């Protein structure tokens, strides 16, 4: 097809050719073509087949308002051809066809539409019942648009930015551009978002005069130039707004060009004030076969010629309801399109200057007429026009029908932000009311049509946004308001909804193949709320999300509904306003985790790392998943565990002790210097949430530890439970400031004494003692003698920057003993043998301190402390019906350990295994379980129901804990 050349409005570069592969054939176009314009210029009329009926569908709008032109590009489905620029070598395939778009084997579906009334799937397929599973398979295969391979990888970089602005303007048409200039003139930071690849909006392609000698397109480019030169305006082109939230949070995504470092970029803006100047789209005309390829909207035909240099066809009929249609007919005629006639649904009210221009070109003009039916089996061949009563009819041959009922404002951003949409009888629009504070609407969406008024309304909105930013522009605003009042206000719009037709194939929603007949069917069944009709018929729920259906559905419902109180109500607008790639939302999506100061050496030592809350930790250092060698090394020799993830805190100040008394269950007044003190925290339910050790460092100054999982919460927990008290204390989270090494095993002392400057004998540094040492005279270490793993052990807390050094020093000192790492798996078995609990492992949300047998830590006589959980501990202390923690061994010592989590049953479920492992020290399995109180007595049999046990229950018996070294002499040696 020959393209129009030399038009001043063109946005393509004819000098540079591009080509794509479509349906296996190569097609050529020019730089600036979208996939849709390139294919159209090459004669493609049928782009796809519709979802349900497999009807041929063609180019209808150019802004992706329906799925008509969705194609598969390089194995990515549902790509909108209308706003995807052509890249050299793209591989494009049509979708939802069996065969080709021209010859689709599924086309017979269109003949079966009688069998598919609204909601038909609710009433068939279930009788007889065995039909349904077969029907499901078939429905799934037929449903869905594009197909995706499970292995496909989307290419390109996706990233995100989070700019802030004083004023954010959505839409760079004449109103948006004027608003931006007004705000920028006040030296404010302005962000301007435009969904098309260039600024100008509906000025951009029009040659009608703005002022004598100044065509609209030139005016648009003039304003754009001014904007580009303003240093404080950040312009985002080809950027679709997708979300609009309270407190002026705007989200959008930008499509990258070849020069950009991203394929698409997520943009999230927080602005002080927002101007919405999104203009209008066209309201589709409802008539028989209104979806035939060759039928398109005014802007589509006009921009196709003016922006891309492609004439829509050879012979066109216009059936329009707005002056833009007449203007397009005149302009396209002058560009070479033959026009059979222009029908205007309005009987009067068009710009009186326009009909004479049609007459001058011998184009017949039919006011009060409308398209009633399109003819042609696959593409448009002719059209029947009728007057509004449907009495007179006339047919015209044509290959193009430019059809549109009028305009409809793009109010999506305002509706998302919380504005209500109310039907306005004058404009026929759903206009926003109750717009949130610091948000302003401007331009064509308010019903304005006069170009000067549109610009001025943009300027006014821009100034109001300036005022939102605290600048005194009141006088200027009043001036502009007065000026605007003198210009033409909102124009009367077309209320016309549907041509006098039967409506069998009059589509309200192209994406879901919903006809007005379907709407009628739904209403007959009792669906009388637009929102329910939408759900029942699925009109507006397709990929275009109501772009086509959005305006007509509620109007049609209101028109045909006989209820007097029915007021047209639009369906709810939902984000995203434009379908958006998951890749774009996900952005760079960096994996984030915390590493301990000795992470690298843990990995180098063969550590199998796993994620524990935010951390990476070593589970084991050997291939054996039971970590036997590590366990035995700790029991018989000496091992080192990186325990840096432990929560570590300093609390100090006159009321520090009171705060500790509030959150810890025991009497914290007993915490003294030089000694470690174990205690636990409960929540209000008396359920254990944390345990750890504490010591006093100085007067009113304490150091304590928490479990890894609680490290992030502990400060706010203590502050929360003292929030009414106005106590004077400070709490500092030292978790990241200190690394921790647990040096454990009978040879631990021999290693430690080689490197520290103080005595570490059992007398000088007894069990539960706390000492501060210097290692090699340079590294300060806080050492505590604890016994979590049940052997002589020293927990060494060291400033993070020294952690690796201390680790290396200990490793060197321990070389003669063959010191070795141990990981979490080894620690888990070691502590299990000791009957030491890990909260979350031996407890759940509802487990109290009493339930895990630690009730004795609760100091009942500190009522004045109002300890968190104390009330519940008192109320539950004698409750025997709760799940209690017990130790167990297998009845047959040779049996294997049951798997963690296996229920314990006796007619019903009575509890479950928390942790069970084979104990190499005891040469039999040991475990801990939470069981109903009546099973908690010693020597009671527990029957364990493992998954997939096929009725074979495992038998265990309750035994006292600890299993290993019951007197605890090994950790005290």
């Amino acid at each position, binding site marked *: 097809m020959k393209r129009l050349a030399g038009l001043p409005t063109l946005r393509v570069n004819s000098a540079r050719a591009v080509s794509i592969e479509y349906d296996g054939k190569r097609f050529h176009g020019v730089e600036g073509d979208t996939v849709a314009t390139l294919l159209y210029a090459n004669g493609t009329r049928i782009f796809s087949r519709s979802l349900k009926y497999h009807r041929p569908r063609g180019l209808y709008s150019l802004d992706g308002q329906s799925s008509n032109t969705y194609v598969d590009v390089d194995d990515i489905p549902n790509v909108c051809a209308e706003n995807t620029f052509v890249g050299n070598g793209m591989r494009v395939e049509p979708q939802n066809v069996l065969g080709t778009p021209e010859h689709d084997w599924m086309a017979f579906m269109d003949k079966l539409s009688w069998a598919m009334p609204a909601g038909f799937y609710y009433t068939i397929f279930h009788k007889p019942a065995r039909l349904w599973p077969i029907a499901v398979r078939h429905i799934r295969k037929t449903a869905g648009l594009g197909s995706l391979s499970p292995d496909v990888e989307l290419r390109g970089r996706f990233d995100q930015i989070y700019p802030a602005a004083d004023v954010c303007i959505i839409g760079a048409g004449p109103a948006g551009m004027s608003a931006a200039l007004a705000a920028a003139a006040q030296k404010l930071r302005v962000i301007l978002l435009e969904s098309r690849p260039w600024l100008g909006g509906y000025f951009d392609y029009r040659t009608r005069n703005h002022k004598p000698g100044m065509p609209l397109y030139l005016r648009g480019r003039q304003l754009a130039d001014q904007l580009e030169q303003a240093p404080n305006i950040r312009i985002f082109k080809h950027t679709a707004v997708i979300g609009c*939230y*309270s*407190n*002026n*949070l705007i989200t959008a995504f930008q499509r990258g060009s070849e020069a950009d470092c991203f394929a698409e970029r997520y943009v999230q803006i*927080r602005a002080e004030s927002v101007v919405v100047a999104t203009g209008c789209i066209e309201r589709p005309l409802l008539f028989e076969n209104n979806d035939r390829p060759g039928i398109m909207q005014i802007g589509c035909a006009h921009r196709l010629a003016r922006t891309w240099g492609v004439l829509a066809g050879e012979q066109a009929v216009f059936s329009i309801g707005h002056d833009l249609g007449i203007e397009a007919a005149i302009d396209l005629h002058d560009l070479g399109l033959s026009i059979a006639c222009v029908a205007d649904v309005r009987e009067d009210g068009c710009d009186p200057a326009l009909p004479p221009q049609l007459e001058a070109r011998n184009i017949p003009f039919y006011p009060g007429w409308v398209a009633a039916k399109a003819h042609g089996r696959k593409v448009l061949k002719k059209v029947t026009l009728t007057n509004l009563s449907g009495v007179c009819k006339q047919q015209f041959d044509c290959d193009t029908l430019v059809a549109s009922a009028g305009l409809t404002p793009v109010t999506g951003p305002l509706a998302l932000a*919380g504005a209500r949409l109310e039907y306005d009888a004058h404009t026929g629009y759903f206009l926003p009311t109750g717009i949130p504070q610091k948000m302003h609407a401007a331009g064509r969406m308010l019903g304005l049509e006069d170009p000067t008024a549109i610009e001025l309304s943009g300027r006014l909105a821009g100034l109001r946004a300036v005022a939102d930013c605290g600048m005194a522009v009141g006088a200027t605003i009043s001036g502009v308001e007065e000026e605007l009042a003198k210009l033409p206000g909102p124009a009367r719009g077309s209320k016309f909804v549907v041509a006098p037709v039967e409506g069998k194939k009059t589509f309200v929603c192209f994406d879901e193949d919903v006809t007005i007949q379907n709407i009628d069917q739904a209403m007959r069944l009792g669906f009388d709320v637009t929102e329910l009709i939408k759900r029942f018929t699925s009109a507006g729920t397709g990929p275009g999300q109501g772009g086509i259906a959005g305006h007509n559905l509620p109007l049609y419902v209101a028109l045909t509904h006989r209820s007097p109180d029915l007021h047209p109500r639009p369906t709810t607008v939902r984000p995203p306003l434009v379908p958006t790639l998951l890749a774009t939302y996900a952005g760079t999506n960096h994996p984030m985790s915390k590493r301990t100061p000795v992470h690298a050496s843990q990995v180098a030592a063969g550590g199998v790392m796993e994620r524990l809350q935010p951390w990476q930790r070593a589970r084991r250092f050997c291939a054996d998943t039971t970590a036997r060698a590590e366990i035995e090394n700790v029991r018989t020799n000496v091992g080192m565990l990186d325990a840096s993830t432990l929560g570590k805190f300093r609390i100090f100040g006159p009321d520090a002790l009171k705060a500790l008394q509030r959150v810890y269950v025991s009497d914290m007044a007993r915490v003294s210097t030089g000694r470690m003190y174990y205690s636990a925290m409960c929540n*209000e*339910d008396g359920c254990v949430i944390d345990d750890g050790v504490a010591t006093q460092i100085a007067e009113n100054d304490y150091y304590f530890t928490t479990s890894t999982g609680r490290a992030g919460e502990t*400060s*706010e927990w203590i*502050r*929360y439970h003292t*929030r*009414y008290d106005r106590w004077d204390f400070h709490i500092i989270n030292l978790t990241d400031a200190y690394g921790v090494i647990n040096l454990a095993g009978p040879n631990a002392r021999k290693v430690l004494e080689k490197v520290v400057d103080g005595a570490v004998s059992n007398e000088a540094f007894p069990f539960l003692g706390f000492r501060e040492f210097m290692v090699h005279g340079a590294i300060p270490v806080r050492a505590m003698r604890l016994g979590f793993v049940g052997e002589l052990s020293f927990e060494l807390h060291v400033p993070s920057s020294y952690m690796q050094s201390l680790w290396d020093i200990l490793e060197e000192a321990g070389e003669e003993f063959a010191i070795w790492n141990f990981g979490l798996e080894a620690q888990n078995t070691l502590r299990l043998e000791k009957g030491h609990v890990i909260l979350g492992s031996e407890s759940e949300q509802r487990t109290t301190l009493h339930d895990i047998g630690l009730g004795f830590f609760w100091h009942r006589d500190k*009522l004045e402390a*109002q300890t968190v959980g*104390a*009330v*519940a501990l*008192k*109320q539950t202390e004698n409750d025997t019906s709760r799940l209690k923690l017990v130790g167990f061994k297998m009845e047959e010592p040779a049996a294997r350990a049951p798997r963690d989590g296996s229920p314990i049953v006796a007619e019903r479920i009575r509890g479950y295994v928390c942790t069970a492992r084979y104990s190499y020290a005891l040469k039999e399995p040991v475990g801990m379980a939470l069981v109903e109180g009546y099973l908690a007595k010693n020597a009671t049999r527990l029957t364990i129901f493992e998954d997939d046990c096929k009725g074979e229950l495992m038998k265990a018996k309750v035994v006292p804990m600890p299993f290993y070294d019951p007197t605890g002499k090994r950790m005290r040696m």
Partner: protein
Amino acid sequence: MALTITCPICGKRSGYEFRFGGEDKGPPPQAAGLTPAAWCDYVHRNNCVAGVQKEWWCHRQGCGTWFSIYRDTTKNLEVAGPQSEDV
């Protein structure tokens, strides 16, 4: 919806920096003689106000302060408190 909360120390910030701390029910009741029902009433039961309520928030990713604000739960927006409390 994009909640912002005004921290008394750090000013107006994104709501995601904060952690919710419940309806403001006042200080806990004295433990002595507290019945299970009265205890439950304070700890677990809520007014579930569909409208403006006073509630606790902590600036978790900021200064760490606990403070109370008024918020409209039907709009998820911080609002000014009753006049009497302003002084």
